[in-house]
């Protein structure tokens, strides 16, 4: 049944492309229905994965070393729930937001393809399938960034496409070299083959290729140049998905899966990850302060928050991994919410530069309050979820002896608060400009997903309670088990 996670959105994309030309709302309704089905099935698969440790589907009935297998373990289940929840809310939001664009069915078809690609990356148990699904998702993302077809959109999409395909090329080369070394593409079988041999120069080279490739997909700092352009030029629902889940799925999840469960994590790789994380964290935050465009500010903020996640995973202690994965979850809640708020501001006023906005709280109270919640969450104000994840990360860094880095992480948290405070005061407080007197609040179908995300943002701290703990704990366990992953698959 696992292949439905890929098959359903693929079929939806096909049906949309065939029928939506004649029946206008067809694409949108089908997309919402698909996202709804995927949301519930991802919850079911995550639950099953927690109960049974891992569920495996053998494609064509071939047992793992020979055939391709699809796997949902704790980490995959965790990611599936995040991706499909955010996609469902984004689809609801897009229903009204996308009305100002022509050829909306293309948006829905491309979005469904992207969703199929992301789900495929998460459930794939085979290196080459990972690459193919990654390309499927990236290709649709390039087109979605260019969806507005303004000059800036096209430029951003072109830049993104060049950088993205370069990253894919690195990853493909890495996979090809690993295949030549291990004579297998199945992740579990590859882990068996690699663990029995001494690690030579080839493995070091492959590690570098994967770090560069997945790092580029995740926009870690030396490879981050495309992100701010792509995420700020795309339509708001696309920005919300790209920043919220896309970079985490293709970048962080794939990186973790390959390094922790296949190649086997070493202290050198961990310290490189921690270093890249801390650089991204600092540089992203300082670049975000200087921005005038709201969406560019949020995009740089994404780089900074991804830095937090990678830094935490680079520390590698159980507490740090908990903090990192919990921060991944939190960021997947408040960043889509912030991009939806930016989209709502753009929808109502037609502007998105800080200098052209002001006093919106009187005209857009709902957008104002949800973006306040998201801003508080991302800056780490207790008792919102973002506070706990950052606290865990900083505590774990101090425990592991990275005192300097812990201090930097705490300082950057204050910088984050500063630029979100700047955003809140400039855009929402004060009296509105005369040109902004006539604007209206966004329609209900856009408010509803923002409300849901706002509520999750406030309540996400509850995930740490014992009743909900297995959701995070299963993901931590599958990372901590390392290359024992192979025994789960090949049992």
């Amino acid at each position, binding site marked *: 049944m696992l292949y439905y996670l890929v098959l359903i959105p693929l079929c939806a994309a096909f049906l949309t492309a065939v029928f939506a030309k004649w029946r206008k709302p067809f694409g949108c309704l089908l997309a919402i229905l698909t996202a709804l089905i995927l949301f519930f099935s991802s919850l079911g698969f995550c639950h099953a994965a927690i109960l049974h440790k891992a569920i495996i589907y053998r494609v064509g009935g071939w047992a793992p070393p020979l055939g391709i297998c699809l796997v949902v373990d704790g980490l995959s289940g965790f990611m599936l729930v995040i991706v499909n929840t955010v996609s469902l809310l984004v689809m609801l939001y897009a229903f009204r937001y996308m009305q100002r664009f022509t050829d909306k069915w293309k948006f829905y078809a491309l979005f469904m393809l992207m969703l199929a690609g992301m789900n495929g990356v998460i459930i794939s148990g085979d290196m*080459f399938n990972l690459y193919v699904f990654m390309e499927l998702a990236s*290709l649709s993302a*390039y087109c979605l960034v260019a969806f507005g077809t303004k*000059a800036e959109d096209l*430029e951003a999409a072109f830049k993104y496409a*060049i950088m993205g395909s370069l990253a894919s090329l690195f990853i493909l080369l890495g996979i090809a070299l690993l295949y030549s070394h291990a004579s297998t*593409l199945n992740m579990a079988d590859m882990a068996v083959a690699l663990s029995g041999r001494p690690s030579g120069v080839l493995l070091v080279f492959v590690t570098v290729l994967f770090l560069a490739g997945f790092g580029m997909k995740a926009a870690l700092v030396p490879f981050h140049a495309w992100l701010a352009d792509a995420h700020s*030029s795309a339509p708001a629902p696309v920005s919300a998905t790209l920043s919220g889940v896309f970079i985490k799925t293709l970048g962080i999840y794939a990186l973790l899966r390959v390094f922790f469960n296949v190649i086997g994590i070493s202290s050198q790789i961990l310290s490189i990850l921690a270093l890249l994380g801390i650089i991204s964290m600092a540089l992203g935050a300082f670049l975000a302060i200087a*921005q005038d465009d709201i969406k560019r500010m949020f995009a740089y903020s994404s780089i900074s928050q991804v830095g937090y996640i990678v830094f935490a995973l680079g520390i590698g202690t159980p507490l740090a991994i908990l903090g990192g994965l919990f921060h991944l979850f939190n960021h997947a809640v408040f960043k889509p919410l912030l991009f939806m708020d930016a989209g709502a501001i753009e929808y109502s006023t037609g502007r998105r530069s800080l200098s052209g906005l002001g006093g919106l709280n009187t005209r857009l109270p709902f957008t104002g309050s949800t973006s306040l919640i998201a801003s508080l969450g991302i800056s780490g104000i207790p008792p919102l979820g973002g506070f706990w994840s950052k606290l865990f990360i900083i505590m774990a860094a101090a425990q592991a002896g990275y005192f300097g880095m812990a201090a930097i992480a705490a300082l950057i948290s204050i910088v984050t608060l500063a630029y979100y405070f700047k955003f809140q005061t400039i855009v929402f407080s004060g009296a509105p400009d005369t040109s902004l007197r006539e604007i209206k609040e966004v329609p209900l179908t856009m408010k509803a997903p923002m409300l849901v995300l706002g509520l999750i943002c406030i309540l996400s701290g509850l995930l740490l309670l014992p009743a909900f703990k297995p959701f995070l704990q299963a993901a931590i366990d599958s990372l901590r088990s390392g290359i024992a992953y192979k025994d789960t698959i090949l049992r």
Partner: protein
Amino acid sequence: MYGRAPIFSKDQVVSNMVDPLPQALVLITISVGLAITIVLVSLAIRIYDKFGTFDITKIRRLKG
């Protein structure tokens, strides 16, 4: 050469064989590459419509 049973059947001695997997992989990679090239070329054509040039030093509207 004689025809022989599939290589993964029992009591079958495999002396020499070609790995069939890379052929499949290369084929898929080529089609993925084709798809990306098509997207890039169509983006480039639309960029030419907007900017009137293919010179990447002149296509610089995004800053910051």
